[in-house]
């Protein structure tokens, strides 16, 4: 179902009104993580435009976005896609979900990964 209400809820979190996106795909063309994504970044934005947020929330893409800002740096319409990705993650996390269980992280990751990775990861995933 197409819903503008869903789009507005995300806007409150992200500060990004995605209506200006004209689907040129430059974000996807330059995304370093695109190969692993089930939906390309511009497709996530399209779903948000349509208010079909459920499908966007179910996508792997929102967890694969590394917030590297390559997309927003080049976006001709000034859309901060990483903010939109974060608003989708946060929508799930604020409901009490978590994408990553710190207890289940592999021992070698816990032992070797820099603190920065753990803090950043836990902030984005829990």
């Amino acid at each position: 179902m197409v819903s503008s209400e869903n789009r507005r809820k995300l806007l409150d979190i992200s500060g990004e009104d995605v209506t200006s996106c004209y689907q040129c795909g430059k974000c996807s063309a330059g995304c370093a993580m695109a190969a692993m994504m089930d939906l390309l970044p511009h497709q996530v934005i399209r779903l948000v435009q349509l208010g079909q947020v459920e499908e966007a929330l179910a996508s792997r893409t929102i967890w694969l976005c590394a917030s590297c800002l390559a997309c927003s740096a080049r976006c001709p319409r000034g859309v901060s896609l990483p903010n939109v990705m974060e608003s989708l993650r946060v929508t799930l996390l604020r409901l009490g979900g978590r994408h990553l269980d710190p207890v289940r992280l592999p021992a070698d990751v816990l032992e070797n990964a820099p603190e920065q990775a753990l803090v950043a990861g836990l902030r984005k995933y829990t």
Partner: protein
Amino acid sequence: MRTGVFVCWCGLNIGGVVDVPRVVQEISGYPGVARAVDYRYMCSDPGQQLIKDTIREERLDSVVIAACSPGMHEATFQTVAESGGVNPYRCEIANIREQCSWPHQNEPGKATRKAVELIRAAVEKVRGDEALSALSIPVTRRALVIGAGIAGMQAALDIAEAGHEVVLVERLPHIGGHMAQLSETFPTLDCSQCILTPKTSEVGRHPRIRLVTNSEVESVSGYVGNFTVRIRRRATYVNWDLCTGCGLCTEKCPSKTPSAFERGLAKEPAVTIAFPQAVPHKPVIRAEACRHLTSGKCGVCEKACPVGAIDFEQQDLLLEEKVGAIVVATGYDLHPKAKVGEYGYGVYPDVIDGLEFERLNSASGPTQGEIRRPSDGKVPKEVVFIQCVGSRDQENGYPYCSKICCMYTAKHARLYKHKVPDGQPYVFYMDIRAGGKGYEEFVQEATDEGVLYLRGRVARVFQDGDRLVVFGVDTLSGKKVEIHADMVVLATAIVPASGAKELARTLKLATDRYGFFSEAHPKLRPVESLTRGIYIAGCAQAPKDIPDTVTQAGSAAAKVLALFSAERLSHSPTVAAVDEELCSGCGVCVEACAYDARTLDVRRRVAVVNDVLCEGCGTCAVACPNGATRQKNMARSQVLSMIDAVVG
């Protein structure tokens, strides 16, 4: 005073918000109002007749029309008043649409009150209006055209053919503009030079066109019908009166630097004729590249010239021309290379722009028309064309569409395919905008011929060995795309020609935020500037293709010819006037005037008004410290009583 008030409904535009019958009722009793009436469309023929009849029946000496902006219909109603027997300068407009019903749609009660107040103010103003008659000014029937690309040439030819002299000024040594650089033109694929050279040679030999190349307009003074233009003809260091165009100097010149005409893809001598069909076919010495002019050495050309035409002592020449109308046709440039970092434009030699591709494809170009890439001269087998580079990109370029890129990219891809049949052209596009006669068909043929269109933008281009890696996307399949190409062609945005901003300042013309010259009205006055007597044509106004440019140039010429059709022009008499008894000659008004209409008579120590330059803006009247300058039909007393009528 017997004033008639005519209140227009403008259908629902005014009548849907403002309670018009009530306005009529309230204004009817206002002092000086002999009669107030309303009508559904006052600008219609019956509406105009109603005004005329009422003037006669009520013996009116002034009228107030409460309707739309004076920008729309002031002239209409002034004419109606005049034909009814009322002096046209005793006709005032109360704008109750743009300044009342439209902005106050949600407050009909307040809007109605405001409409009454605006009309009262207009009645107060008309009470003080003098009966004036229009001023008359002579016309110099001779035109200046700035820029000799296809727009300027067409305008010049049309004016000259109608019997008037034209001064055609071109910054470069030769005429023809960017069209001279193109190989073929869409949608017919005819050779650009073949359709251009009949025009350039006609311009070159036309008895009524004075061609002034290698020159720029330095200053303009005067007003419609009476402009004085100073033109700087830069030194060419070649005496063109002696020069036969034999080309010996260019053959012998030892100093070779990148050619601007070839977009840097080839070198040219310091003394050069840019291309074989150049008009005038005379060389110039580019001072910055000439060994003799930079270091005093060399001088080979001087020795080679059989007629002694080389003149290293030549100076710039200042010319003065009197003209009655000006056409601005300064054309375009392409988006600067430095601003497209993600595509390596300006860094990787095989990432080129559209004009560079035109030169590669041109029989007279650096590769004699063979498609060979700049880096190593190889024939590229995979070529990626990227549209909308800088266009439709508010963040890193310009929000507007450059209009011609969809078509010329299709043309490029097709020409490439014709010359390299086993090659593969790819086009990244966002939307195909091919509205124009034969345009959509032309693009469809491109796909028939094997051009692969991918819908999406490219994020990055980088060099990998001798190939270019293109990170793109095809949003139709939802796939990220990586192409390893031999050459990348960028359809970079059209921007105003360099120097357009300075010219706009010289001519006191408005530009839009990008630097394109502003037309007087985007729909109804597309070739007129906001300054009377100055017209615009071609890409100086906005990106456009050759057919549109030629059309607009013809239209600008028609405007010039209409101006030249009368011996004298009329000018509004609502200008500033000076009470010489009160004037102390302080000169504040001269400083305040934006139109050079105010000067000091030093001998008599009073300020004077040049009526025909005065636009009636009133700035000087306000600036005058002792009330010596007044604005005709906008006297201080009128303004004060208007304010009283609104707030009182």
